């Protein structure tokens, strides 16, 4: 049994009267990739966004239930969400680098969190870019605008940006869906590499991607978890008809 990095217990999300996520309980192991799959509108992204309290931003959204990180329920009004979010990195569907230089994109977080030393910052920038397999491509133009990078590079920069603040968990919301196949392959390689250090939760539409990169898979439907098991098992021997229907492409 692996360490649990993050655990949701009876988590529900309501938008007004409508329930988008219903009573979901899932454990996410540390140093492992967990994929959340399911048809559009099944609540998987909403669920993911609850894990770092991003749904706080949406007016009318109500998140109930517990989210445990290291023995503490972070879905409580007392939680300092700013500190919480430093522990949880996030990557979005579309690359969203800041309108700043490549260097600034990465140094921004650590500097805000108290690292002022230029040398230390340089080091963090280099390390993060190396981890994101972007160092070789960008080391000569660190002070150019990040918006000049290609879409795939931008997405890797966003990953580098989130690991620069040393989180322990990384949430990814369809990180490759807006990218071309070559960039997608690079991102997948990167995820496989990062899982050695992080608890990664990834939402994906692409079932092959889920099969390739994840160890565990949760299948969401209509806001509920239909099935949660080892990825191999889900894809070769699903227990529920709905899961197998989805995987074989009968709907979704």
């Amino acid at each position, binding site marked *: 049994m692996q*360490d649990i990095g993050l655990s949701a217990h009876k988590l529900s999300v309501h938008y007004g009267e409508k329930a988008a996520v219903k009573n979901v309980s899932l454990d996410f192991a540390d140093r492992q990739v967990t994929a959340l799959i399911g048809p559009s509108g099944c609540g998987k992204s909403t669920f993911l966004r609850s894990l770092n309290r991003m749904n706080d931003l949406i007016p009318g959204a109500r998140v109930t239930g517990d989210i445990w990180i*290291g023995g503490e329920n*972070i879905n409580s009004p007392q*939680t*300092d969400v*700013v*500190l919480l979010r430093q522990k949880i990195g996030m990557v979005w569907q579309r690359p969203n680098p800041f309108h700043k230089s490549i260097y600034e994109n990465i140094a921004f977080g650590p500097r805000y969190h108290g690292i002022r030393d230029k040398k230390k910052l340089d080091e963090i920038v280099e390390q993060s870019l190396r981890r994101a397999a972007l160092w070789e491509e960008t080391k000569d133009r660190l002070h150019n605008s990040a918006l000049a990078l290609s879409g795939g590079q931008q997405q890797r920069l966003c990953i580098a940006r989130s690991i620069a603040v040393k989180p322990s968990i990384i949430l990814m919301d369809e990180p490759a869906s807006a990218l071309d196949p070559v960039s997608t392959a690079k991102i997948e390689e990167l995820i496989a590499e990062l899982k050695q250090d992080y608890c990664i939760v990834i939402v994906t539409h692409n079932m092959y991607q889920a099969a390739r990169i994840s160890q565990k898979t949760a299948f969401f439907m209509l806001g509920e978890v239909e099935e949660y098991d080892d990825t191999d098992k889900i894809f070769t021997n699903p227990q529920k008809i709905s899961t197998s229907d989805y995987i074989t492409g009968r709907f979704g």
Partner: protein
Amino acid sequence: MAQSVGKQQPKPHLREEWVGRVYTFLCILFLLLTIFSMVYFVASKGLSTFIINKVNLAGFLTGLKWSPDSEPPLFGALPFLIGSFSTSILAAVIAAPLGFCAAVFMTQIMPKFGRKIMQPVIELLAGIPSVVYGFVGLSVIVPLFRDIFPGQGIGIAAGAVVLSIMILPTITTIATDALASLPAGLKEGSYALGATRWQTIYRIVLPTTMPALLTGIVLGIARAFGEALAVQMVIGNSPHIPRSLFESTSTLTSAITLSMGNTVMGSIQNNALWSLALLLMIMTFVFVFIVRMLERRSKL
């Protein structure tokens, strides 16, 4: 992972958050305080004419004669009310069809020319200071009217023409936005039934955009109603109800502009002017209210 992420001692970011919250809140508070004190001060000054100086309210609103220096002083604001309403409504009567035609032209007939040239020019028109309009009115329109019509050229007609040019941008911009945001299917459906462009415009486009067009017109009237200097320069400023459109008269704003500096704060003459300002303010509320009603209707 055992490290706590939640309840910790106050951190610098909490203070920072607090700074942002307090700063922005103070700004909005300042804004609100300003507005409320504005309403309060103008209202208390304006009402003191009736409360302290015991001027009869009905007489104030319906009286035909404004002569603050006579014995006893007479405060009949009806000439000003008539002046304000007639100039601003007449201005809207002139500007509304023009603005609608300009909007149709820019969205339905020549969209490229409209967007590239006409719209910027009309927006520019909105930025021209009102004293410049007044100056042009005084040196072009007033002499023109003097030559064509009986009288001195000054009066409601001159004021309305100057105001109509001033509010044309407001009306045109809102009409253009309304026409441009019509769903394409609506028009295409009509064309597909064999309707001509004009039939489509007056059977489909005009009825659907009516609330928005009216909003533009009301906003235009509101602006015209509150405009002071441009009107004051061309209206003639005599406190009578005119017998024609080309005879000198006054509006609420022009009366305030001219006399406020010549009266002593606290005197009945001065308070009466504040009552005029209060009327202006109440009309502003009425206009905002009408606009809100229209907006609600256009959303349905």
